[in-house]
């Protein structure tokens, strides 16, 4: 087998397993390629042959009454979402579309979504992709086909390799199939808006809302200059129309002293959450580095304050627990981000930066020695010779 420019594109799992087995034998590294829309995430590829999931495509089943769907890894997300929408259902976790950040073309796939645990604003109420993923099949680095989980909502049979592979950036194996549990698409939504809060007050308002019994499914805060000249804090409720009306009213009353007065509806609300999901508010200018920082919600503003001038732009999602941050694409700025976060706890991912920077820095939160040892052991248990996406998550792994 030679390293070629044209990717391997197996037509089924058996063929994929043969390719992986041969690559292992010939000591060839494989880079898994889906739609390519998230290729900028993680450390840059270190060369090797490309293994494309494009032909491993199609919905295997969608059982609306059971609220489950299984699709092959190369299935475009748009195909899955259209099939679900036809039955008034959705993937619960509102997966981020990375094309805004990377200005990329291509079509996001199910495999890429699983590999990056792509989640969005509804993470606070419906969990991440890993919480909805109930089963998968993969080809491990030994060229063996392995399944974990299944198609049922509750399953504790054996070790859970499903979540382990979700967000593993393809470093453990080639995903071939994924099974999700679904939710009904909300009939209606409303987004309560509060204007002109500073960061601390915005997070305080979101904290009060998230500690209320009104089922908030989105809590984000934008600074001045992000769509309006003043800052805005947003709180979303979803569900049946009469319930949404009731809860939006109650939230406005609850947050009256913060200045809550009205709620956005329909497309106005939807487009706002799409933009927050995709981090559009900080996507420009292109040359800036972008960070995704997850921490305890009330520490969000403290983290940003500690960054000082290193924070070129930022907004909050998850009630303050997710900070989308733009910085200079430099070693110094990266060091400042890690230093600002360290005493607060949490983790920072360098989502966008030039290849050279992502190659020499930790893209993900650095691992403690004990965690690095366990991570190495788990990687070796799937992929003893480092065939898959070598170095994607951490150098030398």
């Amino acid at each position, binding site marked *: 087998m030679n390293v070629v420019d044209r990717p391997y594109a197996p037509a089924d799992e058996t063929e994929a397993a043969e390719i992986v087995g041969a690559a292992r034998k010939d000591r060839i590294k494989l880079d898994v390629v889906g739609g390519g829309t998230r290729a900028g995430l993680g450390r840059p590829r270190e060369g090797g042959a490309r293994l494309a999931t494009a032909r491993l495509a199609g919905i295997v089943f969608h059982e609306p*009454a059971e609220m489950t769907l299984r699709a092959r890894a190369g299935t475009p997300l748009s195909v899955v979402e259209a099939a679900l929408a036809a039955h008034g259902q959705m993937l619960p976790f509102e997966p981020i579309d990375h094309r805004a950040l990377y200005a990329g073309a291509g079509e996001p796939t199910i495999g890429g979504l699983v590999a990056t645990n792509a989640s969005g604003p509804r993470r606070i109420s419906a969990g991440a992709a890993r919480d909805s993923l109930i089963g998968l099949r993969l080809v491990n680095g030994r060229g063996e086909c392995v399944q*974990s989980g299944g198609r049922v909502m*509750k*399953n504790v049979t054996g070790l859970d*390799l499903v979540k382990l592979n979700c967000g593993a950036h393809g470093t453990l194996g080639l995903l071939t199939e994924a099974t999700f549990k679904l939710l009904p698409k909300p009939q209606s939504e409303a987004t309560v808006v509060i204007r002109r809060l500073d960061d601390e007050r915005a997070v305080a308002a979101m904290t009060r809302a*998230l500690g209320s019994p009104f089922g908030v499914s989105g809590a984000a805060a934008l600074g001045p200059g992000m769509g309006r000249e003043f800052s805005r804090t947003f709180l979303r409720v979803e569900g049946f129309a009469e319930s949404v009306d009731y809860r939006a009213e109650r939230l406005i009353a609850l947050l009256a002293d913060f200045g809550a007065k009205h709620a956005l509806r329909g497309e106005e609300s939807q487009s706002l959450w799409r933009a927050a999901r995709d981090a559009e508010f900080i996507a420009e200018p292109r040359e800036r580095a972008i960070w995704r920082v997850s921490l305890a919600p009330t520490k969000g503003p403290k983290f940003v304050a500690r960054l000082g001038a290193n924070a070129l732009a930022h907004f909050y999602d998850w009630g303050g627990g997710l900070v989308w941050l733009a910085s200079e694409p430099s070693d110094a700025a990266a060091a400042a981000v890690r230093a600002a976060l360290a005493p607060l706890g949490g983790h920072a991912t360098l989502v966008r930066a030039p290849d050279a920077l992502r190659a020499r820095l930790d893209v993900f939160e650095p691992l403690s020695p004990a965690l690095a040892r366990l991570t190495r052991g788990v990687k070796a248990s799937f992929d003893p010779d480092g065939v898959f996406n070598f170095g994607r998550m951490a150098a030398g792994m």
Partner: protein
Amino acid sequence: MSQIAFPPVDASILARRDAILSGLAAILPADGLIADVAGRRAFETDALTAYRRLPLAVALPRSSEEVARVMKFCRDANVNVVPRGAGTSLSGAAIPQEDAIVIGLAKMSRILEINLADRYARVEAGVTNLAISEAVAPDGFFYAPDPSSQLACTIGGNIAMNSGGAHCLKYGVTINNLLGVRLVTLEGEIVDLGGPALDAGGLDLLGLICGSEGQLGVVTEATVRLLRAAEGARPVLFGFASAEDAGQCVAAIIGAGIVPVAMEYMDRLAIEICENYAHAGYPLDVEAMLIVEVEGGDDEMAAELAKIAAIAKAHRVQTIRESMSAMESAQIWKGRKSAFGATGRVADYICMDGTVPTGRLPEALRRTGEICASYGLRVANVFHAGDGNMHPLILYDVNDPVQQQKAEDAGSDVLKLCVELGGALTGEHGVGIEKRDLMRRQFSEADLAQQMRVRAAFDPQWRLNPAKVFPLDGRAA
């Protein structure tokens, strides 16, 4: 199939008993080590009481550091380790053996931190499930997973088994409500996975540890999500003339885009047993009953219940009884949550825990009845209908070895049926020793080998809870 086997006891460990005990005594406080037979007897079984094995000794550490010392000692001395919470496992996951040290987390029962603004609690592993919710209830918060044993079971045990409960249809199981753990590895390292943030970096080792049945390390602390309780909750009883009607009603409710907080199913025998015990006002003249619970403000609940009632009527519901007070709601849930205890007063039973795709529930119920009848045994069904997690209680007489064998065989057949219908051996009770030898029904050799290699990354010598989860034969060295 005969009685569930245990691996042969390691004679080299037994031969070193005195040295092991004095080694442990040197690293634990005097009241942290139980060596006498009477004391050890309390740790010989869990809720799978038909099986009892006396451990070599019991360590009761008070801190992660003490756990780490015991783990390192056991690794260096090549002694098996069986972690234990409250010992409420229905699958035998906490049953020890003569060559094993039990590490009991009972003394680590402090709530370390409650942070309502950031909506988490940090607790030691020995804190009971219910104690977390009770600590935050005055502020209107709760910890969502609610296994029936929540009064006794510990959060450490919940994490080991990835426990569920009646309300996971809306709120998910343990892993969906777990933010972080402090894990002590066999090497005696103390590792923090996750924390108050929603996402952790690196591989999702938290998702791997949760549900690993104590085979990868000992969890000593947990950070769990706290949720604000809804304004109100109201369970409603729906009685049906047939299991099919009830099953189709469940599918239709979900198909209509309604996800109630809970949808519990009980058949005639289960209704009768629970009603006799709890006097919850269950209808006694129906073949099947659903407890459907909705949440929210009064008008919200009324609107959702009206939708559900209309669907139930379209599926020939015979009786509808709405809870009119908090006390009635409590009675309704008391009946359901005491199903296992109430059944235990009528007969001995084994409780199966297989899961099937919800569309296959009517078939699963019918064939479960046929299987049990073919062994001459009675079965009561009570389960989480919304997620297809069955709980057939197979009644038998524990003093009759022939009946016990029949009950175990029938249970095994029911689990094979669940897998055949596209489901799983266990939805929330875990594999333990009970379903270990059925694992090949659900998994291929490659699947199991992959799981065992992951296990070996944490415990290459099979020292941690070694008799559990994986078939005894075919284990990789």
